[in-house]
């Protein structure tokens, strides 16, 4: 039975799948374009909140508009990239309810890999483009004294951020196997994390700040590395040097996510389909 798949092995299988998904999305060009533009505006509208607040106040959590925009850009780019790749995992409750998950499980590929490739949503790229645009403008306008260390931090942060948010998507997906009706419960961590992460962490009340740093490492995706890049100290419970440990946060949350995902699938008994 494995014969037909033998020719497509390992990485090539996934590249072929992603390629076919992208081609299929590009087939309906106008629809794809509308979604791409929408996704760009989603980023823009999220940014509007920071723009409005700093239109009324000189600083937000001790940061000027440009500094707050750097935090937004870093965290938002990380989240947008994670959403592009792992956003599909968010549909697990729907697959569970409709009993369509079996169709994925009988195929000879890991479920998570299929989730990623089954709907690699290139149309969500607009949001990443907007975040990147914010970052570029901020870096041009802000007079940063970049060293080798802070430059590498600048480049690594969106990638590590994407890893952290990706882990949150997978962790939430794994939990869905237990609480199908409780999707909103995990939304607090995934989308609450995305929201908290793109704000200057100092605005968060202390318990919320601790929650979104040490339980859900959202402040690590933007604010804390931005402090290091700008050479600022952190507020209580959020020292800037934590930023150097961002990869450690990513690895630990992925360990948790992997565990939840495995246990979730093992628990799944199917809908009798």
């Amino acid at each position, binding site marked *: 039975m494995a014969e037909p798949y033998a020719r497509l092995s390992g990485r090539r299988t996934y590249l072929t799948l992603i390629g076919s998904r992208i081609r299929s999305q590009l087939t309906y060009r106008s629809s794809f374009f509308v979604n791409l533009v*929408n996704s760009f505006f989603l980023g823009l*509208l999220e940014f509007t*909140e920071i723009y409005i607040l700093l239109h009324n106040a000189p600083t937000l959590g001790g940061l000027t508009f440009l500094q707050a925009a750097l935090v937004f850009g870093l965290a938002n780019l990380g989240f947008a990239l994670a959403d592009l790749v792992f956003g599909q995992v968010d549909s697990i409750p729907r697959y569970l309810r409709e009993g369509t998950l079996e169709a994925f499980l009988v195929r000879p590929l890991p479920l998570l890999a299929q989730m990623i490739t089954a709907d690699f949503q290139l149309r969500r790229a607009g949001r990443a483009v907007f975040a990147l645009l914010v970052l570029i403008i901020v870096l041009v306008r802000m007079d940063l004294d970049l060293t080798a260390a802070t430059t590498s931090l600048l480049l690594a942060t969106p990638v590590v951020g994407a890893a952290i948010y990706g882990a949150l998507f997978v962790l939430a997906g794994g939990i869905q196997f237990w609480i199908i*009706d409780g999707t909103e419960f995990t939304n*607090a961590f995934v989308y*609450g994390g995305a929201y908290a992460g793109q*704000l200057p962490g100092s605005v*968060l009340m202390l318990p*919320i700040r601790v929650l979104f740093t040490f339980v859900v490492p959202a402040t690590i995706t933007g604010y804390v590395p931005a402090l290091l890049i700008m050479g600022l100290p952190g507020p209580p419970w959020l020292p800037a040097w934590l930023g150097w440990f961002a990869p450690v946060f990513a690895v630990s949350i992925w360990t948790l996510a992997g565990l939840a995902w495995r246990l979730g699938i093992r628990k799944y008994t199917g809908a009798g389909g």
Partner: protein
Amino acid sequence: MHRYLELARAEFRRHSTYRLAIAAGIFTNTIFGFIRAGVLFAAIAAAGGSINGYDPQQASTYVWLGQALLAPVAMYGWTEVSDRVRTGQIAIDLARPVDLQLSYWARDLGRAAFALPTRGLPPLLLGALIIGIALPPSWTAYPLGLVSLVLGISISFLCRYGMNLISFWTLDIQGYLNAYVLVLGLLSGFYVPVHIFPDWLRQAAYASPFPSMFQAPIDVLSGRASGVEAFPVLGVQLLWLVLLVVLTRLMLWRAAKRLVVQGG
């Protein structure tokens, strides 16, 4: 009238079965409330204690009333009518002896009547206990606020219903819905109060029905628009309600004609 009341009641009961979803909704709205309150407090502190009438206590009131109204007003994603248009079942719905718009409207009010005490009040109470909120300066804020809230829910429903009716012309309305939700999120005052927008953006918001869904009930309930000041707010809401009823009636009338032509 009786049959619409029954529809509202059925919807009320239907929603009471999702206990876990209710608990999860309360949890999420509370967490988001704390984040939102923190941001506003920080901006207000940096601005010197108040932004356009919002001191920390008023800001807290705005945030927690907003988190409480989120579920009842339900501005986001609803595709029930458009799904039925796509599958063709709408033809059967139109043949039923109840008015399509009124039956969905009644059901939406039933849904909201359940959502308000179960999903709305808990975050409000938690926020009031932990951070504190301001009570309105006059008792009239409660009855007037309730009227404003019913108007807000109805305007939210009519907009969603209107968006769904677009599917009579184009089957895939997802793109339109996404764009609608984006604009609505900002202009309704959901992220940040409309009153602290820069001028050009505030004008854009006031020219749309969105603040009438969300900002208006919050203003009346919190007493920001107190006593007679509440009447212009209610007046604008009423205007949007009438406008949207006429618009959606016209849309369905045109759509039904097309449906007959297609032999549905």
